[in-house]
């Protein structure tokens, strides 16, 4: 710390001001005063200060001039013009006022509307707003803002002088306002209305049923971009929609998107790219898990410092319920900012979520390697630049708002305190009792001399004086701005000397009385600094990352992903799914593909695997799965526009469990809550990759349909959603396809216009629902339809025939055996359960012979799981086709390998062991249809994503990691219970936890 012994002017105001302004520097001019005019210039010169500059340097001994709530000048040793009151800040530091870029300060919450008692709320509000209530672009924070004294003071105590206030409710949330935190009224506090436009993926208090899923939120955003563009191009408008007007009006503002996790950040950034929008991303503090991918978005981030509380792990039984992810997050969340800084990702920091732990956590982040300058930038220049308000806030520069804080030390130093917070030229004193006169002093009393150590506890007046004359003695001290009173034991009998005095020079002097009552002169002269026990070197010592980030960030994650291998698997029983059937032979794999299948192969530079006594099969493909998805069902009758690709959770543990069961790929389907579901994601189980890595490139596009009890909401007596009968279900399809045809014609007409004509014609509205339906009719998208009873199966084939396309696959299809001949004729495949039945009325006559019967009638049959557990035993489910209906073993295995590949149009590269196909292979310990078979290794394109031996070492690693982190937590919490008050919170008077 810079030595500071000079008497400090600001302290003179202590008695007058406790966290309140003297007067308003600039009152609202058109308001009528209740009294005589009290207009003041508020002109101050702050001198001899260390003034922080935007480049991270300090002007040492600098001067800051402010007037009328603005900064006039910042420089070293400027001549102070007349009309300025000088405040000497020797030894103090001045920083720009901090900006919290993400708050709901002063914005009233919306109350959730009452729904109408039905299971679905299908319609928006009665007002002329958007068709979806979660689109609230017409909301302007500036029109709802009212100062909140309590919150304002809390922000000020943290050092903030301005905040961005928004209403965090809805998918499109309207605009935010920049609001200063002085005592003025709303007219004065709102500095800039409509600073940024805000979005999220959470519909908030909207009671409208749609969207009911994450992919529905993405779809709604996408459609609204299109609608707004279409709407604005029409004069007169086709209807009144204040929301769409506002949507367009505020597109030029910074667009701030709040996401729940890093995967949403990546997905929403891609959505922004579709419309040439670069969002600022308000993240949740987990970006460190894939910082390089976050960086690639090009987004500026808003980062919280709300670190998770330590999970409860004291009890060994309940500790078991804490996931490894939560343990690791507890450990690494405080390193988030450092990792982002290392990646040079620009970010602001918000106190939201951390609140009173803000400074403690920010200092932790700095200790953990966040450079101090970047921490300060993240609260000043970066948010200002992000909001396009650099000239106004975030730095100490002429004409900027006079928003700044005065600190006792460098802002992020261990014991630094924010002494004052000036907002638009108004002064708020945060630490009125701060005294910096600590040090070593020589005390001369009469002719005796002592050494005294004067120290302060967190700047508070309560201080301790230690007498050093060989032994230490406690000294009673009463210290104020103007007076000092000292008493201490001066002789063997315990008699005390009592001294009183006043400040003089770098110390004090005065008179006192010895124990015998004699009047003495005394003097206290500063002779040196205290030895600091924490020092600054402690701050500079950067904590090491306690553990590396693993991919995925969960149990069974790896620090580095497994590598592709060239392999020669010798002597296994190979289930080729080709003409040669099942043979004992060798399989050579190169560059992720099957290179050769044949006897006595040899090759150089390959990993040899002895397959003797084992079985090698193509990887299992699950045609119907819902693992690894953030959401399953969107609720509207036709949600063809939603994309399951946008909600793939690449970190889901069931992906690894699937690999352990020999599963290499799956179609991740929308649920069956509506007749027309959503677009499928077809993935390979590339455990450790991002969602984008998992998607199979170039795979055909599919969509989920559904029929029967689920879509007519049989188990929801209060449902009002059309359809409620199988009759209505047919009409949903006929209607959707008819509309799609009409939509196609409309666009064809428009597209056939000349360029000139197009310029004078409003383009038809793009409708993502109809576009998707049209893709089906155009053969660009294929249908997998959930189905149970024969009537509905027959119906859907008729609908498809009448619109001249084919149903690609019926899934579940449990009464497929009753219409298998019709299915074969139509060309539909069947992807069914081996033996599920009895859970609904419509599966009462589901029989385990279904697969065998459909196959007998010529249908391509797959066996699927629809279940995260069963999917890892699909080989056993295939065996049931042998048990029930005598399907040959080779055909049974095809039902979980080649046949699902055919149904997914992937059989040109997957599903069999043939030269040129992907090396997606499973080595089994036993006959693959046997209950006793265990997958030993599962390769995807020659990469061993699962290996039983490696699995064993991962288990040990998990056990060690859990033990290590749990003992770190228990260490921490036992230390915490002894000395909870160690944490100094700058400016903070309350430290609630």
């Amino acid at each position, binding site marked *: 710390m810079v030595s500071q012994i000079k008497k400090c002017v600001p302290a003179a105001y202590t008695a007058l001001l406790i966290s309140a302004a003297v007067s308003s520097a600039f009152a609202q001019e058109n308001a009528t005063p209740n009294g005589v005019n009290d207009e003041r210039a508020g002109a101050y010169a702050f001198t001899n200060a260390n003034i922080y500059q935007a480049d991270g340097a300090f002007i040492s001994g600098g001067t800051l001039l402010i007037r009328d709530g603005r900064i006039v000048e910042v420089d070293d040793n400027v001549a102070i013009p007349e009309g300025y009151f000088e405040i000497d800040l020797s030894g103090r530091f001045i920083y720009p006022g901090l900006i919290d870029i993400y708050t709901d300060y002063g914005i009233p919450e919306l109350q959730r509307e009452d729904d109408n008692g039905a299971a679905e709320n299908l319609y928006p509000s009665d007002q002329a707003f958007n068709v979806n209530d979660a689109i609230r672009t017409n909301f302007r924070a500036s029109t709802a803002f009212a100062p909140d004294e309590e919150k304002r003071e809390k922000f000020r105590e943290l050092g903030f002088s301005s905040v961005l206030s928004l209403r965090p409710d809805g998918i499109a949330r309207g605009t935010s306002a920049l609001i200063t935190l002085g005592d003025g009224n709303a007219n004065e506090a709102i500095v800039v209305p409509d600073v940024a436009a805000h979005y999220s993926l959470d519909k908030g208090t909207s009671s409208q049923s749609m969207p009911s899923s994450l992919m529905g939120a993405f779809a709604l955003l996408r459609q609204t971009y299109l609608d707004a563009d279409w709407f604005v191009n029409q004069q007169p408008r086709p209807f009144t929609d204040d929301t769409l007007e506002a949507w367009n009006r505020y597109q030029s503002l910074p667009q701030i998107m709040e996401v729940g996790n890093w995967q949403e950040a990546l997905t929403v950034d891609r959505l922004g790219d579709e419309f040439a929008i670069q969002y600022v991303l308000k993240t949740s503090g987990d970006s460190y898990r894939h910082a390089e991918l976050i960086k690639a978005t090009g987004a500026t981030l808003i980062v919280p410092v709300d670190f998770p509380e330590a999970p409860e792990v004291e009890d060994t039984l309940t500790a078991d319920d804490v996931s490894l992810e939560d343990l690791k997050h507890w450990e690494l969340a405080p390193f988030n900012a450092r990792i982002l800084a290392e990646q040079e990702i620009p970010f602001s920091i918000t106190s939201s979520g951390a609140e009173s732990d803000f400074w403690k956590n920010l200092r932790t982040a700095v200790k953990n390697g966040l450079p101090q300058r970047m921490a300060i930038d993240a609260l000043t220049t970066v948010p200002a630049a992000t909001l396009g308000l650099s000239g106004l806030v975030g730095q100490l520069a002429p004409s900027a708002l006079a928003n700044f804080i005065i600190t006792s030390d460098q802002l992020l130093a261990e014991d630094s305190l924010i002494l004052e917070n000036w907002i638009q030229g108004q002064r708020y004193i945060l630490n009125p009792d701060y005294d910096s006169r600590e040090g070593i002093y020589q005390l001369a009393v009469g002719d005796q001399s002592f050494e005294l150590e004067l120290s302060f506890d967190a700047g508070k007046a309560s201080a301790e004086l230690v007498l050093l004359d060989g032994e230490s003695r406690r000294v009673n001290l009463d210290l104020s701005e103007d007076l000092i009173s000292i008493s201490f034991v001066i002789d063997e009998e315990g008699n005390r000397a009592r001294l009183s005095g006043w400040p003089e020079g770098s110390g004090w002097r005065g008179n006192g009385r010895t124990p015998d009552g004699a009047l003495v002169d005394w003097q206290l002269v500063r002779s040196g600094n205290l030895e600091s026990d924490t020092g600054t070197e402690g701050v500079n010592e950067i904590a090491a990352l306690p553990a590396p980030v693993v991919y995925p960030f969960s149990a069974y994650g790896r620090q580095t992903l497994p590598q592709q291998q060239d392999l020669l698997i010798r002597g296994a029983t190979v289930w080729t799914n080709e003409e040669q059937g099942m043979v004992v032979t060798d399989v050579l794999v190169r560059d992720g593909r099957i290179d050769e299948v044949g006897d006595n192969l040899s090759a150089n530079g390959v990993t040899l695997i002895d397959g003797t006594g084992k079985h090698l099969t193509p990887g299992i493909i699950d045609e119907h799965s819902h693992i690894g998805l953030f959401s399953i069902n969107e609720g509207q009758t036709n949600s063809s526009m939603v994309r399951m690709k946008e909600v793939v959770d690449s970190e889901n543990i069931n992906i690894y469990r699937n690999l*352990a069961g020999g599963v290499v790929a799956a179609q991740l389907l929308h649920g069956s809550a509506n007749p027309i579901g959503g677009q499928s994601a077809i993935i390979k189980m590339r455990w450790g990759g991002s969602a984008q890595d998992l998607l199979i490139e170039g795979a055909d596009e599919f969509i989920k349909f559904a029929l029967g009890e689920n879509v007519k909401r049989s188990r929801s007596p209060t449902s009002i959603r059309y359809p409620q009968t199988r009759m209505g279900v047919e009409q949903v399809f006929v209607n959707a396809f008819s509309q799609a045809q009409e939509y196609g014609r409309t666009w064809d007409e428009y597209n056939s216009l000349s360029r000139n004509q197009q310029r004078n014609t409003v383009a038809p509205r793009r409708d993502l629902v109809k576009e998707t339906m049209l893709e089906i009719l155009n053969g660009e998208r294929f249908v997998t339809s959930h189905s149970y009873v024969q009537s509905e199966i027959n119906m859907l084939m008729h609908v498809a025939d009448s619109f001249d396309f084919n149903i690609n696959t019926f899934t579940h299809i449990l009464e497929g055996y009753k219409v298998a001949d019709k299915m074969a004729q139509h060309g539909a495949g069947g992807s069914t359960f081996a033996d599920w039945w009895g859970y609904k009325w419509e599966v009462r006559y589901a029989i385990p012979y279904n697969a*065998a019967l459909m196959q007998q009638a010529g249908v391509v049959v797959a066996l699927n799981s629809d279940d995260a557990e069963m999917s890892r035993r699909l080989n056993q489910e295939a065996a049931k086709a042998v048990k029930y209906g005598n399907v040959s073993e080779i055909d049974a295995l095809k039902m979980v390998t080649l046949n699902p590949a055919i149904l997914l149009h992937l059989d040109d590269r997957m599903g069999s062991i043939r030269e040129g196909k992907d090396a997606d292979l499973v080595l089994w310990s036993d006959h693959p249809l*046997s209950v006793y078979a265990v997958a030993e290794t599962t390769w995807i394109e020659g990469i061993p994503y699962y290996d039983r031996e490696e699995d064993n070492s991962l288990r040990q690693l998990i056990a060690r990691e859990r033990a290590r982190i749990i003992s770190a937590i228990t260490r921490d919490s036992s230390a915490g219970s002894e000395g909870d008050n160690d944490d100094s919170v700058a400016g903070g008077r309350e430290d609630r936890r």
Partner: protein
Amino acid sequence: MKKLLGLSLLIIPLGLFSVVRAIVPVPAADQSEPIAIIGAVIHIGNGNVITNGIITFDEGLITAVGEAGAGINLTDHLQIDIQGRHVYPGFVLPNSTLGLLEVNSVRATDDVLEEGDINASVRSAIAYNTDSEIIPANRFNGILTAQVAPQGGLISGSSTVFKLDGWNWEDAMLAEDIGLHMHWPSYTQRERNPETGLFETVDNENYEGQTQLLHSLFQDAQAYSGQPLNLNLLAMRPLFNGIAKLFIHADEAREIISAIRFARGYGVQDIVLVGGADAFAVKDFLLAQNVPVIYERIHELPLRDWQDVDTPFKTPFLLHDAGIKVGIGGGATSIDRQRNLPFFAGTAAAYGLDRETALSMVTLTNAEILGVADRVGTLEVGKDATLFISEGDALDMRTSQVLGAYIQGRDIDLNGTQQQLYERFRDKYANQLER
């Protein structure tokens, strides 16, 4: 009289003869003559196997089991030579809803859960529907005996063990009102956090209240003199005098400990733990308490992300290896999966258990736990001739083909609705192909 029946005449469930039948099979007639199954691989159910064996039974009871050539009397027996195929004791399905529930989602078919937390007095015995279409599908896989239990609440009622063939519940009963079922409340529950949208584990705020309900029930039942008339208190009596078992349904470690300590505290002697997902975490407690486990979670996911991928598969082995008596259950809540009981045992055998031990977990051990081992569970002289013949290993879906089955010597019809529908459409498509 010596008949040598080739397999073509042996019970062929999917015989070429399609006949119009009642939807559920007709209950079988009493055994009319002594029967000898010869040329059999006999799985006794207690861990032993006879590779070339003979088993005879008469008037519903097993009369001899042994090696071929051991001098077993075959006089006057109808001899069935199964040529190296397998004979097993009928599987015993614990904690099932057979006959109480037909279609999960149709409330009218659901007789599983009575209203209220405390239902000590209700009895599954009289609600069991012998004509349920679910039952033949279970028999088809060799499940010939089942405990039928009410579910839910805190005290669900009492269960009864049934033979899976009979004209009515009286007829089908094997052991009546064998025990009461207690579902111990959870310490925690999974709840969706409305703020984050994520599921998280939160404390069950009702835990104290729910356990208090149980305490007061057990206290009042212990003190109950018979007056005033209280059916629930009356129904609790068999617990305290050792006549009835207490089936404690609990999965998580703390709940297992609390529930068993609770029951012991009220002097309940005969306790069975049902569920037991976390049983291995408290194995020493279970051993010290001498409580057997019906483990129901084999074809389930590990409860926690970090656990071994194969935790559910290998838990029966781990418990058995620790010295705990383990039976394997089917999981009462999903009626369509109970028929896979043998394959649960097969999976357990793939992960540590030897096959005959795994078999005993769905035969003898379950019979012992249910208190019916004097009648079923092994192929031993004097026990009921409740057994079946399989083409191959009946714990492996690849080889399990139940060719014939007997319940107390009665030759039961394995063809249920599912087989009838199969035949109907198989023939339809076969005829189409011919044309």
